[in-house]
């Protein structure tokens, strides 16, 4: 079933209002976080490390394999220092040497080192000889008492934009109501003026002639009698209906705006927009192949091995997102769908081998008779993906932006000047053709991009 998105102006208006209201609430949130961090700093000063610096270091060095509260490639690190001291009787010195040279400790036969090594699939931890003891102290301080997660902050702020949105809704209604009132008043005034004028006329003895009007031929009869007019209007009607019928028929099979529901709610907005991931990181075959390729699930897992939950953008979900149900929990559940499909056991951090390929619904679908090659456009011509696919980085749900009709292709080939610089293949051709056409820049059409056989074979 196809659902076609027409982006209504009202929703645009709403989103503008929302953005406005969110801007207002930003300061509040920033203050919250600063306060929380201040508290944390105070608490950890006694432990001898700076948790704020520690957090930075943790994110730079450790976060790829460790989380605070869960197992990843390596063990969970919350309160690691105390845990080791209490459970294994290991001191900070052990940790220093482990972090700086874990392989050395394993080979030296340290019991706990070997235990950990065996437990985590014999994946040796990267050595960090560059970290100083102070750095490690900072990290440990962070793990001991991490700054409170901004979850509450998000929760509190979440309400605020809601309120803001509803208040803006009220003002809208007030304005509309006022307008209706003004309109009603105007109508009333006109009626009143009319009756007053009539009364004045009556009073002055002016008789309004109604009889004359009755004698006139009804307009439809007059129209029917005037055959020329009938003919003209019939022709006009026929032409108009042909025009609209043509327009309607030409959009058959054109799926512009096609926005199917996908098995996993994958948000290009979060990936390409918020996180600014380059399109061709995932759609890598667009560089070399005719297909842009839907990334295989192992590509997803490059990041999602460590990104196991959605923490939201720092400002928290917008009202629009909330209205659609796009909460953090919702997105996290979608990540779990990925894990299920790829067969990733989160607890044990390993692949189970039971995979279930994802059946995406194809959106952009050229007919078999048209040959289109992504690499020609992406690698050779250097066209941005967005030229044809639209503002993907803003699309929560992907849809077909361009009509993908032949006219649309041809138009671009006629207008687009091809970048021939620094490509040895084009050197001679460019020289000869620019002389021939007397132009410096050539369009795809001038290079033969309109020939039938270039796309149809």
């Amino acid at each position: 079933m196809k659902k076609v998105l027409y982006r209504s102006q009202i929703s645009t208006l709403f989103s503008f209002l929302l953005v406005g209201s969110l801007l207002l609430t930003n300061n509040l949130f920033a203050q919250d976080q600063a306060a929380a961090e201040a508290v944390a700093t105070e608490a950890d000063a006694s432990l001898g490390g700076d948790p704020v610096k520690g957090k930075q270091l943790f994110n730079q060095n450790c976060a790829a394999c460790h989380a605070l509260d869960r197992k990843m490639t390596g063990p969970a690190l919350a309160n690691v220092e105390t845990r080791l001291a209490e459970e294994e009787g290991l001191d900070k010195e052990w940790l220093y040497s482990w972090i700086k040279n874990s392989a050395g400790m394993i080979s030296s036969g340290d019991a706990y080192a070997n235990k950990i090594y065996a437990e985590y699939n014999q994946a040796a931890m990267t050595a960090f000889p560059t970290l100083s003891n102070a750095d490690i102290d900072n990290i440990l301080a962070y793990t001991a008492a991490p700054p409170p997660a901004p979850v509450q902050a998000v929760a509190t702020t979440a309400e605020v934009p809601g309120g803001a949105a509803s208040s803006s809704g009220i003002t809208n209604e007030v304005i509309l109501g006022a307008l209706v009132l003004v309109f009603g008043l105007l109508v009333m005034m006109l009626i009143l003026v009319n009756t007053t004028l009539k009364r004045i006329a009556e009073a002055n003895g002016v008789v309004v002639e109604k009889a004359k009007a009755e004698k006139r031929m009804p307009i439809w009869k007059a129209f029917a009698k005037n055959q020329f007019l009938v003919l003209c209007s019939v022709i006009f009607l026929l032409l108009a209906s042909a025009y609209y019928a043509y327009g309607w028929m030409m959009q058959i099979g054109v799926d512009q705006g096609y926005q199917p529901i996908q098995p996993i709610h994958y948000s290009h907005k979060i990936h390409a927009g918020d996180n600014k991931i380059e399109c061709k990181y995932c759609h890598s075959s667009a560089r070399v192949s005719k297909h842009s390729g839907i990334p295989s699930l192992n590509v997803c897992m490059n990041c999602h091995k460590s990104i196991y939950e959605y923490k939201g953008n720092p400002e928290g979900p917008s009202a629009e997102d909330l209205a659609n149900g796009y909460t953090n929990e919702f997105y996290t559940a979608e990540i779990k769908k990925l894990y299920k499909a790829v067969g990733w056991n989160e607890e044990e951090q390993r692949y189970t081998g039971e995979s279930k390929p994802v059946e995406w619904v194809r959106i952009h679908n050229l007919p078999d008779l048209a040959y289109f090659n992504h690499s020609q456009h992406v690698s050779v011509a250097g066209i941005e993906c967005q030229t044809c696919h639209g503002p993907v980085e803003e699309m929560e749900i992907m849809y077909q932006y361009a009509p993908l009709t032949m006219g649309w292709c041809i138009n671009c080939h006629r207008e687009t000047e091809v970048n021939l610089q620094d490509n040895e293949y084009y050197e001679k051709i460019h020289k000869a053709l620019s002389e021939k056409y007397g132009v410096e820049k050539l369009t795809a059409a001038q290079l033969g991009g309109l020939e039938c056989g270039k796309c149809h074979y």
Partner: protein
Amino acid sequence: MASNKVYWKNEADLLPADSNIQQLRDNEFPTEIPVDEFLGDKEGLSDSKTNRRDFLKYIGFSTAAASLAACEGPVIKSIPYVVQPERIVPGVANYYATTIANGFDFASILIKTREGRPIKVENNKEAATNGSANARVQASVLSLYDSTRLQGPLSNGEPVEWAILDASVKSKLGALAGSGKQVVLLTQTYASPSTDKLIADFTAAYPNTKHVTYDAISEDAALNAFEMAYGERALADYHFDKAELIVSFGADFLSDWQGGGYDAGYSKGRVPKAGKMSRHIQFEANMTLTGANADKRVPLKPSEQKKALAALYGKLNNSRVSTDLSEAVLAMVDSTAAEIRSKGSKAVVVTGLDDVNAQQLVLAINKMLGSEAMDTAAPKYVRQGNTATVKQLISDMKSGNVGMLIMDGVNPMYTLPNASDFAEGLGNVDLSVTFSTNWNETTERTQFAAAANHFLESWGDTQLKKGHYSLIQPTIRELFDTRQFQQSLLNWMGSDQSYYDYIKTNWTESVLGTDSWNKALHDGVYSSEMSMEVTQEETASEPASDGVLSGAVQSLASASSEGMELTLYSKVGMGDGQQASNPWLQEFPDPITRVTWDNYLTISRADANELGLVNENAANGGLDGSYANVTVNGVTLSNVPVIIQPGQAKNTIGLSFGYGRKVGMKEEMQTGVNAYALYNDFNSIQSVTVEKAAGMHEFACIQLQNTLMGRGEIIKETTLEKYNTEDPHEWNHVPEVSLNHQEVPATTVDLWESFDRSVGHHFNMSIDLNACTGCGACVIACHAENNIPVVGKSEVRKSRDMHWLRIDRYYSSEDTFQDDNIKKDEFSGAFDSKAGFEEMERAAENPQVAFQPVMCQHCNHAPCETVCPVAATSHSRQGQNHMAYNRCVGTRYCANNCPYKVRRFNWFLYNNNDEFDFHMNNDLGKMVINPDVTVRSRGVIEKCSLCIQMTQKTILDAKREGREIEDGEFQTACSNACSNGAIIFGDINDEKSQVAALKKEDRMYHLLEAVGTKPNVFYQVKVRNTNEA
């Protein structure tokens, strides 16, 4: 007055008593519509909850729902890999080097795969030996996707687990170990060092094992002769490019003689360079591909060939050999001997006679000459079958000495002339296992049918020629529950090694030395220098003594030549018949007869007239032929269709192997008759009697006009002498037209403004008629590359064949084409020419033959483009004539206006259509389809595109890498497939390119130049070497 007249329709009406008549009259409509049955039951009707209005509502609703649902576009799913293999990028082809070694065809090839599916076979240009794929090898990729393949092991026809099969075989092997009974492995020729070692290991484990190699079409005589002379059971290799004179006695070395693969070398010597080209004299009975290419062809009965060979040996050896050959033949032998003498070591003599004496003589002659073309130091191993052991096996089986028979790659129940003996023997074998990809005549009779891998799913290695190794690697995982023979042997030996590991170990130990396995696997071929040196010494073994040879000469010279002789041969399209269920090959037109979907008896016109056998064209143009019954040694093949073959030696007939298979085949594929039934004593030459049978056979022959009728401008040809001495204008005459009452060259007159093609690429194709042997590899390559549909026999008969590339074959109606031209020019007056042309429709008794590949000529001034009402076909700046299928409305004006008749019309939907139940009608077969080329629908015209998908890809690759394109990068499917170098493709705007140089050659001409179409395909004049000595 009232009339009493009774009108009667029938004589029987006059007898009113006849109740039959009355009854018939009353019951004009035999059965009444049983309205009462469903309307009579009033109660049932009134009880029904559905009343008329509801019924209408349902109809209305369902119609509305259906039409609404039809407005919805289909939802298309895209399923990416879960874990994408590193080397697979969707949309980008990968190539893997492998080797085909199916017991008949041996070639090192490249396999093009897309998204993991093998879709095309290419030549492995790095292979020093057998690097070119013939038509059958080109088509072998489709056999991988044969929907009739065995999908798992069977026990007596019922599906069974491999474990059960293994258990029965192992227990039987154990049980037989102590008993005196043999375990026999009856296999094809592998030419595989690892398989040989494996079988030796197996024999060591089970000492009662015997290995019998069996070639369906035997080269036993040649193998025996070579063994006698050089002490090794192998075949001499020949480098025809080094020969200046090639004399052949019945050797069809351009097709399958001694394993084939000689055409590339032959063609190299056939292109005149510096005024020199090789000369080729052929003595033969059937008109073969080789004979068709010869400069001098002498039709001779096989027995007379033997005598001629003996006489030739006598001449060269200065010994007296008396034969009863005719004066003319003797004169020919004399002149040949003189020519051989003058060429000395530059001459070579070969024979295809299944006679060990003849083979011995040939080896002796070449040795005597010191022929540079013959290579005995590094012989070929592509045929190893031993008929003596096969015969021994059958008698052993019959006497109950064989406990277990394991077969691989052979189908003896089909290919043995005495299949009934074999069947009888099978009854006495305790356990029989057949490895086969398809259900066939043999699997039907054996206990277990072990589903074997296709070669594209298998590991393996070969040594096609001493020191020349190649590897077989799988290009796709097994499609079905199949297992290859070698892996099974390993399992049965109790080894848990994979055959891949076995090969690798064997290679690193005994083949590669210090060289890299990975490189050998990547290249697919490996030449070992070391083993070459070793062989140099071995060749010093003593030559056959003169005494033995004089006996051979005596027996050849006294060969009896009475009655009719049959020469059995393998057709280019079908070979030994193991790919008979391949629709590409069934529809492949035979290069000589141009008949598809059949085998037939070839017979000379004189004999046909004598026997009352005819060929005639039916009202719809199709070719019909009489049936004949053929009897050899008491075995009769009845109703063999007859083709009257120009050039067939008198008193001889020919019949090809490979047809007549029935078991396990789709009905449409069950074509022809089984010639193996006549393959008495594994000898391809048989004494035979032929008699006419009733009825006419309908052929699907795609060329009905066989002669050129003196139209020399279609195939221009000249002699080497003229080519060397005369001005090119004399022998490559540009046709002239009258302009302003003056004769001017046709190339100077033009109706159109010429288009500027100087910028970018301008593709041209050169076809060298000297290098083209007509082998047809290009036809199948084109088929595979461009998703050309198979249309079936009845459609081909209606001239609706779809081949984009055809190889026209013409016979001369006089002795030579030159004489044809002269005869035509000398006609005076209408009556003379009418009678003359009628005569010229008929080919000569021993005609000259010429082959001409014709595809779309991509005219710069294309007649098709101007008549298309919807501009579906248009011209590109790159010289290609484009065809936009989705724009075509099927008026076929273009096809009618094309002077070259190269446009093909889709009369039907050829895919997903049960009426055309070939590979495009099932999901498996569709896996061979090239994803870069549209599959055409009904009602559109299609034609050669000069493989625009390939040229566009080459351009795009260069653009992406930011470089200029080098010569040789531009290829088409046909130019890639042509290992003979007959088809050269390239960009003439690149002045350094080979094709640009070829365009300036003196031999260059365009087809039908007078029409003024200015084609982008051009031909090179055929030069015949008629210089005697």
